[in-house]
């Protein structure tokens, strides 16, 4: 039995993460403690940074040196990391960032929330960029997705965000690591800073002052994101083939919504399916559009004020009615609450 936070840390180490820098914040403290304990014993380096700004910049350095590296935090700390994430994206440096999200805005509280959806999926910091993001809904997926995130980060030379929440991070569950085998050989990184012996020197940069050069760089980044968006969409569909009503939810909310699909309420006319985005960016627009083709309507369930629902509306482009069940500030929708909402709309 492990918490999701510890599972993410173990998944990272198994993926070959050899540098971690972080700063304490609830609800991700089990992760930083696990790294502090385990990483030095397993050939890695752990640094408790003086701030989130420093932590993400240490990741910038370790990544520039070609080493798999990770940082983690919870919502307010992730806001601080946005500076560094923008630089990582602009400099095309791979890194994994775990956000064990909590309520906001401001200091908010330390309960589970999905209020960081926009920040995660729209870039977060300044400038035109995207982070690939994965949304686990269990401790097992905290391990699996974090492990996967390192491959994706290296493949695209881009930061990857794991968007969990206080529930997924702190809940204790059985977790298996047998399938998460540490790779013998990691991808070559000829761009890494190792000292320019026997090769052309490398420069890691996001500054392009010469007229037109930044736009060229922007175009190149956007082409990369477009390719990534075609290749890396992940979602889970439960009972969507013949559904009359579609639930859309991710992370904790998807787990609760799946109970409603498994035990559908009697007072809702029609079969209920669930589409669960696993990658929040790239969002499964085409998959959702296809799944929604023949449904009466869609209910989006989220622990935020109406953030995920915007992507749902973008996917169906007004072809189907889209409804919202929103909880905020640590409120968690129950299966009964979802069933009640379905009955009120579709009953």
């Amino acid at each position: 039995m492990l918490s999701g936070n510890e599972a993410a840390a173990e998944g990272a180490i198994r993926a070959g993460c050899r540098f971690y820098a972080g700063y304490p914040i609830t609800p991700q403290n089990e992760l930083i403690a696990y790294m502090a304990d385990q990483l030095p014993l397993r050939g890695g380096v752990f640094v408790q940074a003086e701030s989130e700004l420093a932590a993400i910049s240490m990741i910038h350095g370790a990544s520039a040196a070609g080493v798999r590296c990770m940082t983690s935090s919870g919502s307010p700390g992730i806001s601080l990391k946005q500076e560094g994430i923008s630089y990582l994206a602009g400099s095309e440096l791979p890194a994994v960032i775990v956000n064990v999200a909590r309520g906001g805005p401001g200091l908010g509280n330390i309960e589970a929330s999905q209020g960081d959806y926009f920040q995660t999926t729209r870039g977060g910091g300044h400038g035109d960029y995207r982070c690939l993001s994965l949304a686990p809904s269990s401790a097992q997926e905290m391990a699996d997705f974090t492990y996967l995130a390192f491959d994706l980060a290296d493949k695209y030379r881009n930061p990857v965000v794991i968007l969990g929440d206080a529930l997924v991070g702190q809940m204790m569950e059985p977790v298996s690591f047998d399938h998460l085998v540490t790779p013998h050989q990691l991808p070559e990184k000829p761009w890494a800073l190792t000292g320019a012996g026997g090769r052309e020197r490398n420069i890691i940069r996001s500054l392009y002052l010469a007229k037109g050069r930044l736009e060229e760089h922007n175009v190149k980044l956007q082409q990369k994101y477009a390719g990534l968006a075609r290749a890396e969409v992940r979602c889970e569909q439960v009972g969507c083939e013949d559904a009359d009503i579609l639930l859309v939810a991710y992370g904790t909310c998807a787990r609760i919504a799946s109970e409603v699909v498994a035990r559908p309420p009697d007072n809702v006319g029609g079969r209920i399916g669930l589409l669960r985005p696993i990658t929040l960016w790239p969002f499964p627009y085409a998959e959702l559009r296809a799944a929604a083709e023949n449904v009466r309507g869609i209910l989006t369930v989220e622990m935020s004020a109406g953030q995920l629902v915007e992507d749902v509306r973008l996917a169906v482009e007004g072809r189907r009615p889209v409804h919202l069940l929103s909880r905020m500030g640590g409120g968690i929708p129950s299966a009964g609450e979802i069933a009640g909402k379905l009955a009120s709309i579709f009953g």
Partner: protein
Amino acid sequence: MEETDVQTGKALYSRPKCLLDVPTHYCAGCGHGTVHRLIAEIIDELGIRDQTIGVAPVGCAVVAYDYIDIDWTEAAHGRPPAVATGLKRVRPDRIVFTYQGDGDLASIGMAETIHAANRGENITVVFINNAVYGMTQGQMAPTTLIGQITSTTPRGRSPENDGNPIKVCELLSPLERVRLLARVTLTSPSRVREAKRMLKKAFTYQIEGIGFSLVEVLSPCPTYWRMKPVECAAFIEETMVKTFPLGVIKDAGAELSAGREAGE
């Protein structure tokens, strides 16, 4: 750029191998070019070109990588010591240095500076103190002198409103794992030689694994001091050194170095 001794034909002065043969963007009379050259000379002399990684700041020297031919990364404003920490911790056999101005190092990056120093990161910090933000049109820096006129202190820096200039070397000196702190300047050939001696010591300490070194260079900014280069030199020698005295503020490396040689 090579001068030879008329009698022996021996090169007296030539471009360091790792200093790229390009014009710099720096203003006439600026100190960055001189310090870049000193670093390039030191890298050549120590034979560490193939192991050295530089971390460039945000500020006038952001494109230092256009001039010194080694591996480089940029860093967000003020974060070079944190970036250097990440680099050095995963590549402890490489030589990692940061090159930072006063705004970068002592204002927005003060936390990163103090904590990298306190951890005793085995890195070299080159700190260019010209008492002004040069890249953004001459605003007050944390090291701007009392009474100094800048675009954000149009009536001169006042302690009541703006605080006093921060003496970085003196501030870092009590931290136990800080090994070398020196303040130098570039106002004469002998001053430049002393600057090089301290910078070389800082790089040597890193090679020897002694730990954190910072060399502060009092450097002229003719453009935003609104002075001619020779006036800048006089200003540094007559005025600036009163706030920022030259010399070695701390050198705990000599003992460590000797201790190691004696096998302690």
